[in-house]
């Protein structure tokens, strides 16, 4: 599904990602964990080419992507992304947010896009708020709309960057619920999160990043119960 080989990325003189190798299989849920600044967001953004790697290779569906030559707009259609701060378009209502890309990017007919959009809004439980603007929604509702918006492009994989960390504690559950449902349906997902309980429940693979390096990866059980590395243990002792 996605394969990353020897990925390196620096910002100026800061070497943020170091020789990252990562394999994301079809229908896998991969959870990235690590301290603030360890490079989790940067890695996720590289998978979507919002950041362009300095060296290394990224294969999407077995296809090597050359960000300097390939049409990234096409690649990105296969890789949906959900951000910490939702980034709903505030000048559009919920429905318009969701149909925007299908209509403008894929050239889908408006009526068809609406049907599609409503089906995804239904899935995240937001169909009844289709007319609302983002300023009228709670954080959890915004995030669910953002998920529906990404899903409406029917991507092959979904990336989530701390999707619940800007939410009030009581609103976290509704968003995690939607994500669990997606996992159950077999969606391939890469998730950066601090919700360790959730990671344990839905993750097929947990990857621990420290200072731009993958220190350890394995099943949730391996990582949370029997971490091999001292650094992993130390990190987990702080966050669990």
């Amino acid at each position, binding site marked *: 599904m996605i394969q990353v080989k020897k990925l390196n990325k620096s910002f100026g003189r800061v070497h943020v990602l170091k020789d990252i190798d990562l394999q994301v299989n079809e229908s896998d849920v991969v959870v990235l964990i690590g301290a603030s600044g360890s490079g989790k967001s940067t890695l996720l953004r590289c998978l979507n080419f919002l950041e362009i790697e300095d060296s290394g290779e990224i294969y999407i569906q077995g296809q090597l992507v050359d960000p300097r030559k390939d049409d990234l707009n096409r690649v*990105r*259609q296969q890789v949906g992304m959900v951000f910490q701060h939702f980034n709903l378009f505030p000048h559009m209502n919920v429905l318009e947010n969701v149909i925007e890309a299908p209509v403008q990017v894929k050239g889908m007919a408006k009526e068809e896009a609406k049907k599609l959009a409503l089906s995804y809004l239904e899935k995240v439980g937001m169909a009844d708020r289709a007319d609302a603007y983002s300023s009228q929604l709670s954080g959890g509702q915004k995030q669910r709309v953002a998920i529906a918006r990404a899903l409406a*492009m029917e991507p092959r994989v979904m990336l989530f960057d701390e999707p619940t960390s800007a939410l009030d504690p009581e609103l976290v559950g509704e968003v995690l619920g939607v994500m669990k449902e997606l996992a159950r349906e077999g969606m391939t997902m890469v998730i950066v999160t601090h919700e360790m309980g959730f990671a344990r429940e839905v993750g097929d693979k947990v990857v621990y990043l420290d200072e731009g390096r993958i220190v350890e990866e394995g099943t949730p059980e391996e990582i949370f119960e029997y971490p091999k590395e001292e650094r992993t243990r130390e990190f987990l002792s702080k966050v669990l």
Partner: protein
Amino acid sequence: MGFGEIFRSTMSSFLEATWVTIEITALSLILGTVLGLVFAFFKISSIKPLQWLANLYITIIRGTPLIVQIAFFYFGLAQIGINMDSFTAGVAALGIHAGAYIAEIFRGAIQSIDRGQMEAARSLGMSQRLAMRRIILPQAFKRSLPPLGNQFIIGLKDSSLVAYIGVSDLYGVALSEAAANYQQFETYAINGLYYLVLVLIFTLLLNRMEKRLDVDGGTR
């Protein structure tokens, strides 16, 4: 002579001049908005020469007094054959002046839109261009309305300077009236009142417009 008398005796010429002031303000602000849009795009474009051009324009206009620009436009340019009547020269100078400020307003508004908006749009597969047109500009335009309104009011007051190139606008008429009736105190006070009323009306209209454009509640 008192206020009342001066008010009555100047009324017809001041009212006529009010139209001149409104006309010259409106035309120059239309020109300024167009220039502002163009140069805002120049400034955020990735083409260096366009950036330079925009920077040069903005630096010169913002670095020199409006009255010098007006004098240059009317007297200076005529000398090298660019020959405008005073109304046209006034509109051109005021418009080009406002354009530099409006360009900065638009640029600031565009750059104030959260980076996440562009990223969200790109992550959905939208091109830079499409994202700009559909996502960034509509939000930026809305956000630029308050400073734009402010700039419009500045433009209204700035228009008074065209009196010195012979336009019979509100202030131009005040100069002539005061020179004829020798009642400087009353004449300028009344003249100021006309401007004040215009500015207050203008402010009211702008506030209404802003509210009207905000009905969808679609701000962050």
